[in-house]
């Protein structure tokens, strides 16, 4: 499975659409009621980001796309057997989406699995050029990963690895090794498809888009200043994942990231461990220290 959709709440849909299309550079593929549907230019499915107008920001749910329709039955059973209630989301609940299963993680986040979604294509499948015309803003080709906070990192990690077959790429532990403070998990060949770090339950730390290289990350940071978008941190390098990054906020205060680089782990990857006293270097390798904003600003 891979990260397919992030549905996030925003406080002003029109203002947010302007930001996500013109500054981030996603493409709008649909709008219905208080929801707007967007995708990166290289994504083939109808959408990867759903914006929902609300009186508060944050994450409604994230959805991972499984390979085969029958995988839904298999995971539905496995999740229920683990003791977590599962419900079916009927086809057509959201634009272009088929049936899904939904359950709540031990950290309080709503997670869905789905296979059926309308494909709109990327227009680059027959004798293609490397990128399409009319790209805007940072123009990420695709959604990359998300980081969530929760109290019980051990339980959520156990569920994700045992039941959904995620693998640990990196973990942050207390100096005595007793406490798990964060885990970075993958199901593809990315250093993280989803990550969890200790904090309040059911909160979103950030969701990230992929860029091709470090120069694109620098250019993305330029666009933040050009458009008076609030910078959070960077551009810099992560110790964890070895990727390069810049963090910033959408108009409702949801943290976004553009991310590139990092290694390509396989299922047999030996996890990397960081101790909490090295967390500064782990998160921001160049600065070697965290700031309060990065650890406390959540939606």
């Amino acid at each position, binding site marked *: 499975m891979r990260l397919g959709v992030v549905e996030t709440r925003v*406080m*002003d849909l029109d203002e947010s659409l302007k930001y996500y299309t013109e500054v981030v550079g996603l493409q709008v593929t649909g709008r219905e009621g208080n929801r707007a549907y967007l995708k990166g230019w290289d994504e083939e499915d109808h959408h990867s980001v759903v914006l929902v107008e609300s*009186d*508060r*920001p*944050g994450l409604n749910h994230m959805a991972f796309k499984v390979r085969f329709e029958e995988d839904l039955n298999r995971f539905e059973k496995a999740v229920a057997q683990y003791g977590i209630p599962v419900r079916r989301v009927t086809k057509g609940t959201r634009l272009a989406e088929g049936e899904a299963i939904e359950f709540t993680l031990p950290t309080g986040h709503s997670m869905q699995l789905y296979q059926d979604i309308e494909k709109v294509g990327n227009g680059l499948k027959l004798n293609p050029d490397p990128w399409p015309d009319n790209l805007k803003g940072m123009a990420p080709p695709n959604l990359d990963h998300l980081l969530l906070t929760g109290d019980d990192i051990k339980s959520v990690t156990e569920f994700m690895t045992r039941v959904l077959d995620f693998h640990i790429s990196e973990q942050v532990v207390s100096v005595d090794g007793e406490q798990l403070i964060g885990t970075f998990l993958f199901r593809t060949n990315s250093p993280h498809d989803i990550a969890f770090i200790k904090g309040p339950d059911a909160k979103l730390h950030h969701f990230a888009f992929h860029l091709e290289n470090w120069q694109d990350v620098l250019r993305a940071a330029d666009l933040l200043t050009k458009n008076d978008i*609030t910078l*959070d941190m960077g551009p810099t390098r992560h110790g964890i994942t070895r990727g390069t990054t810049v963090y910033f*906020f*959408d*108009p*409702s*205060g*949801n*943290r976004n990231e553009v991310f590139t680089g990092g290694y390509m782990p396989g299922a047999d990857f030996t996890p990397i461990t960081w101790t909490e006293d090295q967390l500064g270097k782990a998160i921001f390798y160049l600065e070697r220290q965290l700031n*309060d*904003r990065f650890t*406390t*600003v*959540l*939606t």
Partner: protein
Amino acid sequence: MPYQAQVRETGKVIDLRDGESLLDAATRQGVTAIHRGCRGGGCGVCKVRVLSGAYALGKCSVAVLPPDERGVGFVLSCKTFASTDLVVSTEAESQDR
């Protein structure tokens, strides 16, 4: 017309330019008693209480600035635009800060 905001705890006076939020003015003048978070009305890090003065408040998350707090002058300074001089408190007790 530009206004001023005074921080009760420190006495520091912040000059507010036309159309400038309380947070942006504080940041510009190095006033760190008001913390910068997401600057989008979402996280609640820049919450202060307005003790006197009039202002317009932009869209703020009800999760971090519930209606009862708004009713007694709590604001997110990133979405606060003064229409008179203000006195603000950075240490007023809030349910969520």
